[in-house]
């Protein structure tokens, strides 16, 4: 296994007397109240949110095949027993809920294979279906994904120097999208994809490596340059049409984000060392999917624990993209394998699902091992929503699209976790609303129209009976 971190030369130093705080207590004592249950100013401990995506579904039972379901737990409720594909979560099981049998609410005429699974992450339909004149496989995402909705709530993204973090692991670009839907898990809005960062070194720089120490005069000078850039954008904006105005507003938003970062002192808590690997794909070489996904998980844990960001998204592999799980002895494209509904092939597909779940489980275990507040860990104060681009790889259906939810979200979500099964195709967006209400208790709807929801999933909430 490759070495994940370089030496400590790039370690950021805390500004108080040059000291940094020991690992394991990332959220500084001085930021907490005497009991460690809240921030010193009385605010509750911050809540975090993230989404996780993997491509090509899981092995569910297909009515036409009478095959064995290798994902869905046999029982529902709090006593759910992990299936083969959920076994990797054994160490964090109390924090995990599984939601099955819910239907993705995408409009029927917006289904184009692989794309429509993404509707689950925001409750908005796909747009511009088939706009690519050479390629009918193309769409754009119709609105903001749930992570961005939460990041933009007052008291979430505005409280941290980095509003949200987007990471990607496997480098393969999906060949089945001439638009933007499949190439990003986070979308700030229509035609506003937030490209995932695949390079751990670059992610480190983005999240930990670009704070300006207070004594460095470049900070204020750079801020005054940004002021002037903002003025130029403002005068250009007046001359443009509505579509371009939206793009300039997004640019202005980016200027504000950068200003916020430049105005923030380097974090006081322990930050990770700069990773040594860049995850650049090379023909003939295998991708280091395990190392890279562990690194990215570590970086996210540090970022959440240090309160550098409260929102993230984790795109393991794009739907239908070419990726090979060489670590488990495979030498075929995982997307190809996912088309196998029976052996030979089905076992390889299933092993791939397990492999992905192991990567997700590592991340959750890392969050569990990272203390947050006096007695808690990150999972106590966060929620993660994970799903795929389809239910089963061989049929590409988004009916019964499986979801994995992790974390207690500060007591908002039921604990220990449960298996909730719907036998009548309940709307997956109900879960989005439930999660959103963990950040905004006044929220009554999420998404748009029939793809959204106004009916939260009460069984997922801690208050359910």
């Amino acid at each position, binding site marked *: 296994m490759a070495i994940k971190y370089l030496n400590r030369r790039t370690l950021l130093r805390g500004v108080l007397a040059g000291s940094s705080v020991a690992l394991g207590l990332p959220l500084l004592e001085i930021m907490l109240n005497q009991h460690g249950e809240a921030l010193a100013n009385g605010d509750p401990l911050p809540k975090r949110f993230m989404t996780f995506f993997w491509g090509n579904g899981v092995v569910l039972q297909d009515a036409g095949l009478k095959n064995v379901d290798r994902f869905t737990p046999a029982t529902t409720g709090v006593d759910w027993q992990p299936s083969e594909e959920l076994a990797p979560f054994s160490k964090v099981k109390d924090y995990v809920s599984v939601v099955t049998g819910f239907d993705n609410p995408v409009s029927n005429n917006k289904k184009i*294979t692989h794309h429509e699974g993404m509707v689950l992450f925001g409750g908005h339909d796909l747009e511009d*279906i*088939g*706009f690519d*004149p*050479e*390629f*009918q496989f193309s769409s754009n995402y119709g609105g903001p994904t749930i992570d961005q909705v939460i990041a933009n709530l007052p008291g979430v993204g505005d409280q941290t120097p980095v509003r949200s973090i987007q990471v990607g692991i496997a*480098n*393969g670009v999906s060949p089945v999208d*001439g*638009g*933007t839907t499949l190439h990003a898990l986070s979308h*700030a809005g229509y*035609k*506003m*994809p*937030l*490209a995932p*960062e695949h390079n751990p070194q670059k992610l480190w720089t983005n999240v930990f490596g*670009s704070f300006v120490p207070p004594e460095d005069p470049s900070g204020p*000078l*750079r801020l*005054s*340059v*940004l002021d*002037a850039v903002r*003025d*130029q*954008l403002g005068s*250009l904006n007046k*001359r443009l*049409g*509505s*579509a*371009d105005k939206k*793009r300039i507003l*997004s*640019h202005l938003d*980016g*200027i504000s*984000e*950068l200003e916020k970062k430049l105005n923030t002192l380097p974090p006081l808590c322990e930050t990770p060392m700069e990773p040594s690997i860049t995850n650049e*794909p*090379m*023909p*003939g*070489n*295998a991708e280091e999917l395990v190392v890279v996904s562990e690194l990215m998980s570590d970086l996210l844990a540090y970022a959440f624990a240090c309160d550098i960001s409260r929102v993230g998204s984790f795109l393991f592999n794009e739907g239908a993209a*070419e990726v*090979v799980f060489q670590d488990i002895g495979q*030498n*075929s*494209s995982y997307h*190809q394998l996912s*088309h196998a*509904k029976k052996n030979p092939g089905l076992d390889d597909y299933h092993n791939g699902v397990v492999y992905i779940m192991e990567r997700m489980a590592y991340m959750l275990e890392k969050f569990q091992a990272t203390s947050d507040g006096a007695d808690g860990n990150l999972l106590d104060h966060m929620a993660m929503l994970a799903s795929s681009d389809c239910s089963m790889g*061989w*049929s*590409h259906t988004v009916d019964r699209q499986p979801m994995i939810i992790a974390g207690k979200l500060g007591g908002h979500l039921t604990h220990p976790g449960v298996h909730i099964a719907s036998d009548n195709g309940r709307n997956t967006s109900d879960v989005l609303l439930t999660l959103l209400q963990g950040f905004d208790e006044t929220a009554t709807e999420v998404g748009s129209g029939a793809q959204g929801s106004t009916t939260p999933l009460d069984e997922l909430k801690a208050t359910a009976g």
Partner: protein
Amino acid sequence: MNRRLRGAFRTSFLVLASLLTVAAGCGADDPPIFGGGGAGPETMEMTAPPAGARQILKRQYVNSIELIFGEAAAEAADPPNSEKLYGLRSIGAAEIAISSQGVEDYEAAARRVAKAVTADSAAFAKWLPCEPKAFDDASCLEKVVSSVGRLAWRRALVKSEKDIVKTLGLAAATEYETFEAAVEYAILFLLQAPEFLYVVELGEDIPADHEDADPRDATRKRLTALELVTRMSFFLTDTTPSADLLDAAEDGQVETEEQIRAVAEQLLAAPAAKQALSAFYAESLFLEQLDTKLKDAETFPDYDVDLARSMRTEVEKLIEDIVWTRDADFRQLVTSETAFVDSRLAGLYGLKNASQIEGFEKKKLISSQKRVGFLGTAAFNTLESHLAHSSPTKRGAFIHSHLLCAKVPPPPANVDTTLPEDDPDEPKTTKQKLQAHMDDPACLGCHARIDPPGFALETFDAIGRYRSKYESGLAIDTSGETEDIGPFADASELGQMIHDNPNFPVCMLLKIYRHSMGHLETGGEGAVVKQLVETFAESEYKIQELLVNVATSPAFRLVGDPK
């Protein structure tokens, strides 16, 4: 049989449909953007493409930095990637919003450029247009700002703008007590300003008596001379206009069609034009994906970074030879019987004395292999294959989508996409297995069109090596026929059929047209595109002439309402 899937591919937009003989489709309904037009293009006045702002591409950013500041700064820049939309980065640059991370990355790129400019004090002194008398020499700073600003913003800065830059620069000079700091912060602003990052094309009013004026369309404008030379420079050379070109535009030398044509021809004569076209084809033929293309190491132990790079270079040299060295019929892209190979590719293709080849040499291919043109290249066959196996479906879909611009629809939802499994006692060829698609009415409509051209290429394995039969010993049947391509016996005949297909040159033309403005054509541009298609044919499909004709077409210099 499923009614929706019956029949041939539909070219699903108005322009192409009106130009070509293409039958009804096997896919979904026309997308709304192309479905709205009423009358055919023949009867339509041109609707000018919308005005607006487009981001410059990553490569255009880097090339502009090289032109303004030199090589070291260009190497340091590393601006954010340009996202593709509908197959082209220029369309993404016109439609996708910049993200917060993108804004931060642009700032970082500008800082790296600024540092690189001042890093080498001897080179910096040489680059400066004046010798600073003090770290806060305002008049020398103004000279820097004027010359850099004009090249970066593609126009002269007005006084108030220069004052802003000077104020920022002098504040930094005062802080650090160096003139370098003044220049660095001036650059930092100039390169983050929207005037550098976006090409703004809003146009100016057209005099009512001018031939470009449309009495029924008051919104129609024409690009200003500066906007026009900027659009031409980025389209044809992927870089910011030179000072001379800006002078010409400001002096009223880029007004008439002859003058515009002369500018286009002059730009095409620059080495940057070759580089720009090469980058365009790397993008539009997906060659850049070779930089990351994985293969199964067990099946192809010789496949590595260098071989993948050679594959890409081969196609770039083939295009360079047709377009620039010989200014020949571009359709030779799919019929060329010679190839540009280095020793590794020559070995892959089974050519004699492969090890003696130095660099890339033009070689005659082995005619019995039927390997011709782009479809015979290792690059194409490697890209459109699985990790270990060739894929007639992938190759056929590429040919339809990206060479003939026929829209290939996705498979219907909830359909079984698996092929019949291998029976060791009764091996089957890929063609026989794919026959299952033809037997299933849900698949037949499309696969009967997608797969056959791929069968012709089955003699090339997943990295483009020739094979006369499958590993199983079964023979390869390369023959096939589709309604839109016609019959072919092998790869060489397939190349000829694509060459002769009227959709092929139109498809090549449309890609260039879209790229030139970062815009998908609409029905209102039908007449203009039709005219371009005719002159392309009259020129015997010369790409250089096409590039000039696109740059001088009314669609290129006129704009409508801002988008």
